[in-house]
């Protein structure tokens, strides 16, 4: 299990939003989040109409971007979300959906990286935009 990149994610239950990594390199990552009916946030968002909050879709994409940025340095550094840019939500995500997150580095400078991110359900874009991630710690 040492090789599973999810083990290097600093997030834990109930704030880990990646279930499986499909692809991971220093430039790009693809991961799955299975959105289940017993997610805590569905208790209140919304009472009669369970929809995954947009901010948590952003968090899902940011956790993946953090893994991409930390590729090869797992456990030594932490990637923080520094900026959310032009994110659009195009369809709701609900219980039973499988959310596929994609994060690709556009450019980097020192400890910062700009990512294009997407979250898809059944190949339809649920959310897309750009995130800036910042690394703290030694490499």
């Amino acid at each position, binding site marked *: 299990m040492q090789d599973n990149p999810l083990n290097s994610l600093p997030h834990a239950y109930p704030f880990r939003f990646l279930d499986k990594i499909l692809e991971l390199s220093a430039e790009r990552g693809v991961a799955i989040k299975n959105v289940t009916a017993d997610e805590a946030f569905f208790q209140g968002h919304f009472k009669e109409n369970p929809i995954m909050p947009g901010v948590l879709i952003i968090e899902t994409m940011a956790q993946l971007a953090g893994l991409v940025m930390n590729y090869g340095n797992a456990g030594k550094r932490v990637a923080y979300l*520094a*900026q959310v840019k032009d994110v659009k939500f195009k369809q709701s995500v609900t219980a039973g959906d499988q959310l596929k997150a994609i994060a690709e580095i556009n*450019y*980097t*400078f*020192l400890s*910062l*990286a*700009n990512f294009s991110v997407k979250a898809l359900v059944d190949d339809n874009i649920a959310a897309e935009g750009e995130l*800036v991630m*910042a690394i703290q710690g030694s490499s």
Partner: protein
Amino acid sequence: MSDIQEKLKGMLVRRLKLKMAAHDIKNDALLFGEGGIGLDSIDALELVVGLQKEFGVVISDKAVAEKVLISVNTIAEFIENRQ
């Protein structure tokens, strides 16, 4: 030189979505920190990419960044020396 400076100011306002007009940026105003334009480290990422895409100059390390990313004048000088 003044053409580069005007183009630089336009790029700064556009890429960094500054809430000021290009002509309000003084050539020697400090770009970062208090008392100047007030850019932060995240703006530096956009600025460096803008310089690469629009002026063809690369700033890849911290030492160069600290010498160049001071004011419109210092960036314009850096660009001119590489053209």
